[in-house]
Structures are given as structure tokens and as C-alpha cells.
């Protein structure tokens, strides 16, 4: 009964010596090819970029050195590849490492971002405190009537001295009288103006006093205030509102057109030259760089707004609506492609059932296909919307402002969160006059870090919603 099992034929394994020799041979060939390439590139650079610089003997030496290094690097790799078992194991391990390389990078980035945010929470109250101290000193002077009077006096004596100079130069009595009257009037005016400016200064100083320096307080201030030239007072409110508006306009513009185009390509005209051209065009449009869409928006929409501006002066040339439409154009191909996939996944039997009941084509689309494809369309829309909200390049090309202190409306100029981050990333360190002398802090970068965190929270939240929708649709849909 117990028959001996047929033995599997296994290819004869090479001996260790054979494996080594193969590895030596292959790594030598590889290193030789690499060093020749190295020599060629170096030679080209020498000829093209820095002619007559350095000797070729030195270049040969460098190439030899490079050969040694490349051989030492290649040999273990080739040795592993030459052995079947080792190569299999190494491939598995490197695949695993590569997959989690992304995770590691994400961890590093987020860790770093968190560090910068913590620094922001540390430095911003300090800067606010410094600013408060300055303002308090100012207030003390401004609210003390004798000191204000002294300051006013000091400014006025300057003008009086000028008058005395003029008087001493004057020769006749009539001239003196004229000058005296002129200056008397001017001095009176100046005194009034000084009173006004001093009162304004006081108001400004009072307003810039910030009482709440707790972490929640400064975070709330950051989220609810306009950008400013002093980093501790800068906020992202207009940018945040602008980004929300842009997202809304993008959806309202791109989703109807995108779903319509997808329906046409999937249900109405699936074959023929026209469908083919539209399809190729959409696939290519999805790969066009976002800057190019910005050029389109900055040219066409700005031109149209400028025409409208003549009739309605309240319309800014580079307004929010145009920016939103630009982003809409950018997301349109992405939405079309994802909607096409969602519509394609709706089983044909459902359509045929509806047709058999006497429904017209549009009734089938509206009552069967679109509701069935809705989760897929929504997922695709959210993902492309998150791309649109994160884009800064088209907005820069469109001419969105970097510094907007009003909450935007579709007809006004605007800024967006990525633009704000870009602006802050581009600034040099901030000089602070601390009690121990001037210190430079990278506070703008910390501002950018906090704004990035806000943006990432919004986008990751949107992605999470998309993934949740997709999973729920997968569970609920059983054809």
C-alpha cells in the first residue's frame, strides 16, 4: 500500500565556488560598464561646462576609483542574485522594505511637522508677549496726559524753531507779520493733527494688546484672523474661507459636466471616431501639468472678468469665481475618468431590465445607472476635489493674491490655503529684538507648518470620507 512517493526532480545546485566565480565575473563586467559611463559623463561635463579644467590623468584615476567602489557595491548584490534561495529571500525583504518606505517617509514627515507645530506653540506666545510689552509701554505714554503733552510739545517745538529761523531771516516788519500768521495757522493745524494721530496710536496699541495667550487662544486667533506682516499676528481666515469657496465652485462646475461627459462616453456613444477622440483627449488632459491650466484660467477668465469689470466695478479682475473655474477645469478630466469607471461597473442586466419595462434611455440613466454609480462617482469626486484644494500652482498663475485681509466673496480677489503656505515657506527668518539682543526665529516656517497641518487635516478627512464611502458601497452593493 505504501508506495514510495515519486521524487521531484530538482535542478542541480551550483557549488559555492561556481557561484562565487559567477558573481565575480558579473560584478566586474557591471562595474566596468558603469565606470566607462562615469568617465563619459565626466568627460562631457568637462568639455561642455568647464573647458580646459583639470587633467585627464586625474579623470582616469577617478574612474578607476569609481570602478573599485562600484565593484564593492555590486559584488554582494550579484552574489545574492546568483544564488536562487538567497535571491528569493532578498527580493521578498526588499519588496517589504520598499512598501513600508512610504510609511516611513510619512512618519518622518508627520513627526517633523508635529515638531514645527510644537515650536510654533512655544514661540508665538513669546512674540506676543514681546509685542504686548512694547504696546503697553506705548500705551503708558499715550494714556499719561503729561507724557503725551511732552511728546506733542517736542514735535511742535521743531516747527516753532523753524518759524523762529524764518523770522530771523526776514527783514521787513510786513514780512515778519506774514510769516507769523502763516505759522500760527500751520501750528494750530499741526497740533490738531497730532492729537488725532496720538489718539489713533492709542487705539491701535490698545487693539494690538492680546490678552489670551493660552494654546487654544493663539490657535483660535490664528484660525480667525487675516494675514499680517508680524508673524505672531498672522492668521489664515481669508485663506481658509477662500479654499472652501474654491472647493464649492469646483464641485458645482465640474461634477455636472464631468458626469454628463462620462454618461455620454459610456452609454450613448461608446464607439466611433468622436468617442475615441474625446476619450484620448480626456486621458491626455488628465496628465497636463496644473500650471498649464493656470495659464488658461489666467488668460481666459481674467480677460472675461476684465470685460465685465467695465460694467460692474465691484468685480475684481482676478476673482474667486475665475479661480474656482480654473480648478474646475483641472479636476474635470479626473472626475470624468472616475465617473466612467463607476458607470461601467453597473451591471448591464439592470439596464436591460429597465428597458424591458419600457423605460426610455434617459429614464434608465436617471433612475438606474446614476443611483447605482453614485458611491463611485462621489468617491472619485472627493478624491479629485482634495487634489484641487491642495493645488497652488494654477492659482499662482491665475494671479491669486498672496496677501488678502478680507473674507473673500466670488467677485472679489482671494487667496487660498496652499498659496498662504507657499508665501510663508518663501520668507526669510524673522528678526526679533529680544532683551538679550536680536534673535532670528524661523517663525514663518512654523506658521507654514501650522497652516499645512490644517490643510492636511482637511484633506485627510476628505480622503477618509472617500475611503469610507467606497467600503460601504462595496458592502451594500450585491448584484
Amino acid at each position, binding site marked *: 500500500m505504501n508506495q514510495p512517493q515519486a521524487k521531484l526532480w*530538482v535542478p542541480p545546485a551550483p557549488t559555492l565556488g561556481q557561484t562565487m566565480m559567477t558573481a565575480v565575473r558579473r560584478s566586474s563586467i557591471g562595474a566596468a560598464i558603469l565606470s566607462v559611463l562615469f568617465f563619459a559623463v565626466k568627460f562631457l561635463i568637462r568639455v561642455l561646462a568647464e573647458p580646459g579644467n583639470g587633467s585627464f590623468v586625474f579623470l582616469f584615476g577617478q574612474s578607476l576609483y569609481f570602478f573599485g567602489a562600484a565593484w564593492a557595491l555590486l559584488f554582494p548584490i550579484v552574489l545574492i542574485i546568483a544564488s536562487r*534561495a538567497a535571491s*528569493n529571500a532578498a*527580493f*521578498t525583504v*526588499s*519588496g517589504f*522594505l*520598499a*512598501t513600508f*518606505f*512610504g510609511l516611513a517617509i510619512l512618519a*518622518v*514627515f508627520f513627526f*517633523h511637522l508635529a515638531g514645527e507645530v510644537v515650536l510654533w506653540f512655544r514661540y508665538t506666545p513669546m512674540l506676543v508677549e514681546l509685542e504686548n510689552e512694547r504696546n503697553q509701554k506705548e500705551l503708558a505714554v499715550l494714556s499719561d496726559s503729561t507724557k503725551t503733552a511732552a511728546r506733542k510739545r517736542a514735535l511742535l517745538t521743531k516747527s516753532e524753531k523753524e518759524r523762529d529761523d524764518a523770522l530771523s531771516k526776514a527783514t521787513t516788519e510786513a514780512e515778519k507779520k506774514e510769516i507769523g500768521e502763516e505759522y500760527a495757522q500751520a501750528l494750530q493745524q499741526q497740533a490738531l493733527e497730532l492729537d488725532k494721530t496720538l489718539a489713533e496710536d492709542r487705539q491701535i496699541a490698545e487693539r494690538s494688546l492680546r490678552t489670551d495667550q493660552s494654546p487654544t487662544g493663539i490657535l483660535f486667533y490664528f484660525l480667525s484672523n487675516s494675514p499680517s506682516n508680524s508673524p505672531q499676528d498672522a492668521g489664515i481666515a481669508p485663506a481658509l474661507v477662500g479654499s472652501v469657496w474654491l472647493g464649492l465652485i469646483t464641485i458645482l462646475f465640474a461634477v*455636472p459636466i464631468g458626469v*454628463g*461627459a462620462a*454618461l*455620454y462616453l459610456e452609454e*450613448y*456613444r461608446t464607439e466611433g471616431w468622436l468617442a475615441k*477622440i*474625446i476619450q484620448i*483627449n*480626456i486621458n*491626455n*488632459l488628465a*496628465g497636463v*501639468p*496644473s*500650471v*498649464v491650466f493656470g*495659464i488658461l484660467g489666467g488668460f*481666459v477668465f481674467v480677460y472675461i472678468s476684465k470685460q465685465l469689470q467695465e460694467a460692474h466695478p465691484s468685480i475684481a479682475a482676478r476673482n474667486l469665481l475665475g479661480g474656482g473655474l480654473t480648478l474646475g*477645469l483641472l479636476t474635470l*478630466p479626473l472626475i470624468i475618468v472616475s465617473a466612467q469607471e463607476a458607470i461601467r461597473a453597473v451591471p448591464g442586466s439592470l439596464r436591460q431590465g429597465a428597458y424591458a419595462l*419600457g*423605460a*426610455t*434611455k*434617459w429614464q434608465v440613466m436617471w*433612475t438606474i445607472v446614476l443611483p447605482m454609480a453614485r458611491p463611485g462617482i462621489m468617491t472619485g469626486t472627493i478624491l479629485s476635489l*482634495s*487634489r484641487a484644494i*491642495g*493645488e*497652488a*500652482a494654477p492659482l*499662482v498663475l491665475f494671479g491669486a493674491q498672496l496677501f488678502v485681509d478680507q473674507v473673500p466673496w466670488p467677485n472679489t480677489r482671494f487667496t487660498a490655503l*496652499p498659496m498662504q*503656505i*507657499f508665501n510663508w*515657506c518663501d520668507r526669510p527668518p524673522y528678526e526679533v529684538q529680544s532683551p538679550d539682543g536680536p534673535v532670528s526665529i524661523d517663525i514663518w*516656517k512654523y506658521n507654514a507648518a501650522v497652516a*499645512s497641518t490644517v*490643510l*492636511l487635516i482637511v*484633506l485627510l478627512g476628505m*480622503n477618509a470620507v472617500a475611503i469610507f464611502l467606497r467600503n460601504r458601497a462595496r458592502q451594500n452593493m450585491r448584484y
Partner: protein
Amino acid sequence: MSTATPPGPQSPFREWLKGRGTSRRTWEKLIEWALLGCGLFSIAITVTIAGVILFGSFEFFTTDTVKVDTPEGKKDRVVFMSGEKIWERTSTFFTGAEWTESTGVYGILPLLSATVIVTLIAAVVAIPIGLLTATFLSEYASPRVRAVAKPTLELLAGIPTVVYGFFAITVVTPALATVIDGLGNPNNLLSGGIVVGIMIIPMVASLSEDALRAVPRALRDGATALGANKFETTVKVIIPGAFSGVMASFLLAISRAIGETMAVTLACGETARLVFDPRQGAATMTAFIVHRARGEVDQFSTEFNSLFAVAGVLFFMTLGMNIIAQRVLQRYRQVYQ
């Protein structure tokens, strides 16, 4: 007995149409035309993009800004150039190794070289890692590992490019500066390339994974029956079997890297100069476009119009790569379906 009417949408517009005696057939036709309009809209976008770029480039190649004496002082005026000068500007643009606006020398090679260097570095980072990730996810990973790894990779693709730029100047450049001598801080091509490479890893990985999964099971089984282990099956059977799909993913990712803007602007700087050393900073084509659009230059002066010419080169380069990639992709779809 009333005849049953199929349920349908009741919109005021339809009621209005019915009131006018419009038949259902007309309504259906109208909808089809509207949907055709949606489809044609995308073609209109492409045509308008090409039109704007060609118009601007035409202005750039044929006109010049000169200072003209007017009663109100010197003013810039745009004038047509002679044929000789048009030829000079065109030939300099495509072959010139210098971009100096103050002297009116516009040669695209500095911008092109920076773009090529950044793209090469990005490809060196993204292609091996992306391909290894794709093979791991499609051939090795258990469903549970894949359930964790795939959304994570998608997360990497969801980070805005301006945040990648922020990472480039605050994380990657300082880290590289401790290892590499003479690294330009804060602007260098190396950190820009690395960051763009990280950005396109998910694209390479997910597109190649789709291609690898499309390889029929029979091929895997055949290789196993011949005694191949998993490594040999993957490298000698599956990757060659999915070669066109993998190639298409590389091409699409590279075209994305060429068009990448914000990260490169922040990481590599905005000065146009010819460098071959990735440790130095130089403006890529996209960074130059951003710089020009942000700069204090009069709109539609020659300096400004150079933006359109650069954008044209960028547009047609990426368009060409995308068309090739789509062709390649189509071929692999036909093989296995």
C-alpha cells in the same frame, strides 16, 4: 383602466416642455445633445489651452518690447521684429544655453537641463521603489498587509505638492546637507528630485500593480510547474508579461514629475542657469513659469511672453509622453482581455 406610465423624473422644465407639446423623443434627443456638449467641452479645453499657448508664443517669437520716447517720458511699447530677428530669437530659444532677460537672451537649455535633472533623480527614486512595492503588493503581500499598505500609499499621493515643498526645504535639504558637501541651502536640485520621486511612488506602484495583477494566473502556475521560485516567476514571467503596463506607469509618472511645480519651485529655486551639478539650485521650466507669473513684469511684455513659450515646450513634452503612455497601455489591455 388607465394605462400605466413608466416612472420618470418630474421636473418643471419637463412640464414646460410637455405643455409646449414636446414629445418624449425630442426630450431624449435634447438630453443626448446636452451630454454631447459635456463631452465636447473637454475638447474645447484642450483647444483653448493650445490656442492660448500658441498665441502667447507667437507674440514672444515675433514681437519685442522697446523703449519709445513719448511726451510723457520713456514708455515700453511692443513692436513687431524683422524676419531676421524673429529667426534669431527662435533659434536662440531652442538651442541657447543662456537665459538672461536683461540682455534679451532667451535660451531654454538651462530650464530644460534643470527639469531633466530633477526628473532623472525622481525616476531613480520612484521607479525601483514603486516597482518593488507593486510586486510585493501583487505577489507577496497577504490581504491583511495589503489592506494597510495600499491606503497608506494613497495617503502619500494625497499630500498637497506645496506641503512636499515645505518638507523639501525643512527636512530633506537639512538632512542632505549633513551628508553632502557643498549642498546649496535652501535651494538645490537634489532635494527637489528626491521629494518629487517620493511624490510619484504611489503612482508608479498602483499603476504597475494593476498591470501585474492583470497577468493571468495560468502563467504563474506554468512557471511554478517548471520549478521556478517566486523571485524567478516574478522577474522572468510576470514583469515581462506586464511589461507594457509597467512601462506606461513609468511614463505617466515621469510626465507628472516633469509637470510638478510647487515642490520644485520651493526646493530648487527660481533662478534660471545652466547647471549639471544636482547640489546646486536652478529653476526648472515650471518653477520659471511660477517665478515669471509672480514677478513684477508688465503683462504681455517680451519678458512676460517668454512664459508662454516655456509653457508650450512643457505642454507638448508632457502631451507627447502621455500619448505614448496611453498607446503602450492600450496594447497591454488588448493582450489580456
